[in-house]
């Protein structure tokens, strides 16, 4: 019972947490706590097979499925805490509390007597015992379950399937499209120019320089441009000069702030 008294408050708290956390991911993690705790309780209740299944199927498969879907929907999405249906929240809490009270009072009214325990049933091993029952007495239910699983799988595939509405675009089509764009709007046919690469480091954040000395905007990723982390080529050139001078001992290294420098810069320093 020690395990129970340790785990029970944890489980209740985790379950309550599911009610109140705003992010679905946190709810999933709290649910994982409850499920693993349950698995341990199963072990304590002489159900080693269910202990394994709980960990593997529930925590491992089902909960992971939840997390996958959460990722598809958006991990960041968080619920609004404002209740929109009038009276729903307090009625729900009232009803839930009433239900719990009813159930506990109901259980308190009965006396179950001494616990028989599963020593006899598990004498040949828990898995063997379960297998004996499942493949004899419950074999029909078991077979029906298999049909249910197949149906569920097919159903999920049907639901997730998206019909192709347009013909598949081939490489030839893409090439033709590109030439057509060039003919109509003068869009450049070839690949975009690569970013400027200085000998010192792999500078994808530094635009290439055109022959007239200006920077080619299309040579750096738009994401970097949006973050505002694009370096300008002349400033970089100046920086390179300074470092060269440093290397030759003309200027003290402290002039250059360490934080300003990119990581591979510092590596270069150490090297």
């Amino acid at each position, binding site marked *: 019972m020690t395990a129970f008294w340790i785990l029970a408050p944890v489980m209740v708290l985790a379950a309550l947490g599911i009610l109140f956390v705003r992010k679905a991911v946190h709810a999933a993690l709290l649910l994982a706590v409850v499920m693993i705790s349950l698995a341990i309780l199963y072990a304590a209740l002489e159900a080693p097979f269910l202990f394994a299944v709980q960990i593997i199927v529930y925590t491992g498969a089902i909960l992971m499925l939840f997390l996958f879907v959460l990722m598809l929907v958006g991990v960041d999405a968080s619920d609004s805490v404002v209740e929109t*249906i009038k009276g*729903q929240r307090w*009625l*729900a809490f009232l*009803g*839930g509390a*009433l*239900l719990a009270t*009813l*159930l506990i*009072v*109901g259980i308190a*009214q009965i006396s179950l007597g001494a616990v028989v325990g599963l020593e006899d049933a598990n004498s040949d091993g828990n898995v063997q015992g379960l297998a004996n029952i499942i493949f004899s007495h419950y074999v029909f239910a078991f077979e029906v379950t298999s049909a249910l699983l197949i149906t569920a799988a097919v159903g999920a595939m049907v639901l997730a399937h998206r019909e192709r509405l347009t013909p598949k675009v081939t490489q030839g089509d893409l090439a033709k499209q590109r030439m057509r764009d060039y003919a109509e709007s003068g869009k450049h046919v070839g690949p975009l120019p690569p970013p400027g690469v200085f000998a010192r480091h792999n500078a994808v954040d530094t635009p290439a320089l055109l022959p007239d000395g200006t920077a080619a905007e299309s040579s750096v990723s738009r994401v970097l441009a949006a973050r505002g982390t694009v370096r300008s080529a002349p400033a970089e050139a100046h920086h390179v000069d300074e470092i060269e001078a440093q290397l030759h001992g003309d200027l003290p290294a402290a002039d250059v702030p360490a934080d300003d420098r990119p990581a591979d810069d510092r590596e270069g320093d150490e090297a």
Partner: protein
Amino acid sequence: MTIPEANLWGLAAEGGGHEVPVIDPGAASGVFSLMWLVIALPAAGALVLLLGGALFDKAVSRWGHLLGCATVLGSFLVSLAMFVGLLGRDEAERQVGQHLFTWFQAGSLDVGFDLLYDQLSALFLLLITGVGSLIHIYSIGYMEHDPRRRRFFGYLNLFVAAMLMLVLAGNYVGVFLGWEGVGLASYLLIGFWQHKPSAAAAAKKAFVINRVGDIGLSLAIALMFVTFGTTAFSTISEVSGEASESTLNAIGLLLLLAACGKSAQVPLQAWLLDAMEGPTPVSALIHAATMVTAGVYLVVRSNFVFELAPAAQTAVVVVGAVTLLWGAVIGCAKDDIKKALAGSTMSQIGYMMLAAGLGVAGYAFAIFHLLTHGFFKANMFLGAGSVMHGMNDDVDMRHYGGLRTEMRFTFWTFLFGYLAIIGFPGTAGYFSKDKIIEAAFGENIWVGLAALLGAGITAFYMTRVVLMTFFTKPRWEKDVHPHESPLVMTVPLMILGALSLVGGLMMFGWIGDWLAPVVGAEEHHDLPIPVWAIIALTLTVVAIGVGIAWMLVQQREVPREAPQDVSFVTRAARADLYGDAINDTLVVEPGAATVRALTAIDDGVVDGAVEGGALAVAGAGSRLRRLQNGFVRSYALTILGGVLLVALTLMAVTLA
């Protein structure tokens, strides 16, 4: 038909005081086994003409009218043969019954399709088939140019068959069959020219008013079955003494109601005058010789009930007396020749009802007058038809005048009928009507005076009809060229004219004795006034009536348009003595008001409740549907509510 133990009851009834003649028919043998043919022939004719006509219209139309006449003539021949056969039998064996088949059987009710041929039926059979044949033959000429003559003859045959069923039936259910058949056929015939709205309305009116009477007959039959356990004449006539007088009075009054409907007696008289919308042979057949006599037949046939029901008998007398004056007054004011004759018919049937109500003293005379009336009224109706035939179907007597030279046969035959109806000494009506007046005086001085007054009025209006039609100056329409009708129409007139003259003489001597086994023998009774005085009084009154008519019609110019500034009495008589107004006020308008009130209640209360309920449900629904707000979590909350409810209940039940 003979029930062994019924004889015991008959003896008991004889021992129990009032004696009524018991009908005890013997088996049909010899010529009497053809009894069913009398009905079957016209019925088959109707079947062929109406159903066959629908399939082979052209072929049947070519000989349909001949077939129609042949079937009725065949019936007449069978009737005649049976009549002769009856004459040859002993008086005790003159009642013949024929059981054709069991009609229906339910519990203790066992109705056979039984025919009864006795002295009463025999006379009716001769009248119906004889006069019917003449009218059929006459119709060949009258309906010659009607494209639906085949159908007309089909209806006529149907009518005759129904009427024969009525008078030949051996039980009241059979009578009812014929009764309803007559009602149907009269509806079809009155409305034969249904393209005229007035004819259609008249047919409907006749049918509806007849239904009122039919209720009486059906209730009477039901009451008789409850009381006697049977509807057969033979059994009821034997055991009628067993029933209480109040029951018999009830039966008698119900039968009287039926008779009033069919015989156009006050208060159910309103349909007869409108029924003149039918073709004239129909008027002659239905409204003179046969259909309207059915009521009289019913009362006379049910003598075993009426003899033991004095209250009902008195009612019959009152109805008869009122109707004979009512009809006579109407007849005085009508310018339409057929309506004047219809008023006359109503009045004469009133005489018969009066006689029938007098009991044993009057039954035979009722039938006697019925037969003579059948002759002279058919004669006059057909004569009127002949006049109309020559006057382009104009019925207004104010457009007639001086026709005696133009239509000699018609005039003379009509004159014979006229003499008969006013009771000119020696003619048919003289014997029959005087006997009724005598019997009426024997019953009650006031009834006698009413009958006497009726005779005077009859003389007045019939003289008026004859004068306006055949005498006075011609007042014809411009394009009218009066001409005598063809032989096929005048020959029946001649036969009927002859019967009008001598029919009374033919039957006067023996009809009372002949009918005695059916209706009972006349007891001798003293009259308050000697017989010769009554005869003299009657003739005087008739002469006064004729004289007044002579002065008012012959001695003055007859205006072509009916004068409007006339006395109240004339106006009332022209309006059928407000018979329709009385019906409207007493029945139609309260009925309509009730229906309007019921409609209002239906619209307001019933519909209001139904529609209000619907609105309430709809309103509740439109509020309740707010619960269906689309939020899954709300639904889940209600599920939780249900779970809690169940859990709480379980807990309460288990812990309690």
